[in-house]
């Protein structure tokens, strides 16, 4: 049977991806350029008995999704950079209390209110370090309408599997452009649900690591009672300042994402003509589409350019970038900010090749010509 197809915006695809993943709760506050995500979900969620709530502000919106998640729901909020700034305290809360949730950030320029209708990619370091304290981060950066659908599904899977907030970041260009999408059939994409406790309520501890680095999470209302706090806590969920507990918990919460095994499961990227590449372009989101165009043009002229496109931005693909850094003459990092991921590439290649930033922050798309010109300047 032919698949259902449509021409739709990235933001609309995000909402449909959330529905596919089993999202039943959206709490948000409208903000350009993310509003269509909320608009579609306000229509779709009630059809399946889900809840859509427009809260009084961004902070309350984040609080509402955390509360809903603790009752067992798969939850989503969608916003842009200014909204993510306001949500940071509660994102940290979700990290330490280990509450699954998905946060969509459709990026515009900044800081502050910036340019609401223009594209940007200047929240990529905020995604990693926006909330204070040591914590693991998962952030996905899709580059097409179809990929926004599949990566939103994957974001829910990762949030549920690792019991934590997962961010999906894409710029206004990908969020608002329309492309053809083929809707996956039910069962075609993997859908992961969180692990529920196998022990009776009286034996349940919300942070019981005897079950591994990701303890099962009971749903409030299902007979299990437990304490949830933003303080460092012991396995029973109650606050503690005992050094050995605090240290072990902090390390576990980072390890559950950044450990070797987890990284392999979480990292995702695409390489295009990197095998024999002499100049590598590292690009994500809409900028990766400019880069791919540029690489094709450069190849026509006999210049061995290649593209590395992270789909998982955090955790950062350290091993592969380090290896590529030893292979190529230079790495070019075009991004709609002033060199945020350029810093990370530099950190990882440790000087084995020059890393050159192309930053654009004027609200216009970073175009292929800029990348072509920069690659040609290499040696």
């Amino acid at each position, binding site marked *: 049977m032919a698949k259902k*197809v*449509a*021409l739709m915006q990235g933001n609309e695809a995000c909402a449909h991806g959330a529905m596919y993943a089993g999202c039943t709760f959206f709490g948000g506050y409208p903000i350009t350029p993310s509003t269509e995500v909320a608009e579609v979900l306000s229509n779709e969620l009630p059809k399946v008995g889900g809840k859509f709530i427009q809260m009084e502000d961004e902070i309350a919106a984040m609080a509402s999704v955390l509360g809903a998640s603790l009752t067992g729901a798969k939850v989503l909020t969608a916003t842009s950079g200014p909204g993510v700034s306001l949500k940071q305290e509660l994102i940290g809360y979700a990290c330490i209390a280990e509450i699954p949730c998905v946060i969509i950030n459709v990026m515009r320029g900044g800081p502050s209110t910036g340019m*609401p*209708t223009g594209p940007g990619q200047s929240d990529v370091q905020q995604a990693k370090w926006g909330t204070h304290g040591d914590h693991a981060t998962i952030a996905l950066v899709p580059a097409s309408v179809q990929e926004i659908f599949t990566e939103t599904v994957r974001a829910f899977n990762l949030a549920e599997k690792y019991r934590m907030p997962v961010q999906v970041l894409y710029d206004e*260009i*990908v969020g*608002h*452009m*329309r*492309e*053809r999408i083929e809707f996956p059939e039910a069962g075609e994409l993997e859908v992961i649900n969180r692990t529920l406790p196998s022990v009776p309520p009286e034996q349940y501890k919300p942070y019981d690591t005897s079950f591994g680095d990701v303890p099962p999470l009971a749903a409030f209302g299902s007979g299990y009672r437990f304490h949830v706090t933003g303080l460092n806590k012991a396995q029973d969920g109650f606050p503690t300042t005992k050094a050995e507990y605090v240290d072990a918990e902090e390390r576990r919460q980072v390890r559950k994402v950044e450990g070797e095994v987890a990284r392999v499961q979480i990292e995702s990227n695409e390489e295009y003509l990197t095998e024999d590449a002499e100049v590598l372009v590292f690009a994500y989101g*809409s900028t990766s*589409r*400019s880069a*791919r*165009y540029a690489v*094709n043009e450069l190849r*026509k002229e006999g210049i061995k350019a290649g593209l590395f496109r992270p789909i998982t931005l955090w955790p950062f693909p350290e091993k592969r970038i380090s290896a590529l850094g030893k292979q190529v003459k230079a790495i070019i990092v075009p991004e709609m900010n002033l060199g945020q991921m350029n810093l990370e590439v530099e950190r990882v290649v440790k000087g084995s090749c020059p890393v050159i930033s192309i930053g654009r922050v004027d609200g216009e*798309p970073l*175009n*292929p*010509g800029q990348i072509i010109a920069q690659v040609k300047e290499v040696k």
Partner: protein
Amino acid sequence: MSKRYEIRFSGAGGQGLITAGIILAEAASIIEGKHAVQSQSYGPEARGGASKSEVIISDGPIDYPKATIVDACLAMTQESADKYANGIKKGGVLLIDSDFVKNEPKGDFKVYKMPIMRTAKEVVGREIVANVVALGAMIALTDAVSREAGLQAVLSRVPEAFIELNRKAYAQGFEDMKKILG
């Protein structure tokens, strides 16, 4: 290497040019099975101001989703002509609403003139379908999609009560352009 064809619709916000772009992209990608990307840029105003919608059509996957060098451009107002009727390919085409664009953009492209708003109001009967008149004319001018695919995409977007009006608008734009082309 796949071939890109780039079309830009521009005019005042509220004239339905983003919708015209969406309809063209649907005709290309859903009805004709080609690759198409539609995008737009707009200011903070809900109406007024210059707005543009771009459609890239290709027989292969489309990387860069914005226009690089435009094959065909539409300008409905003087402001949009001044702001967006640029970057047109050598030998490309520009269609202007001759009642509103008095100061004709100059370049190495061919300019076509039609009283688009007036046609919608006086011949078709409603100014609101000027975007569909323009779409019909642009399809006749560019052959970006077939006449039938364009019509099918128009009709699948409009409510039952407005089907005849839009059918008429599309045909009028298409025929008027064919006459100009001779």
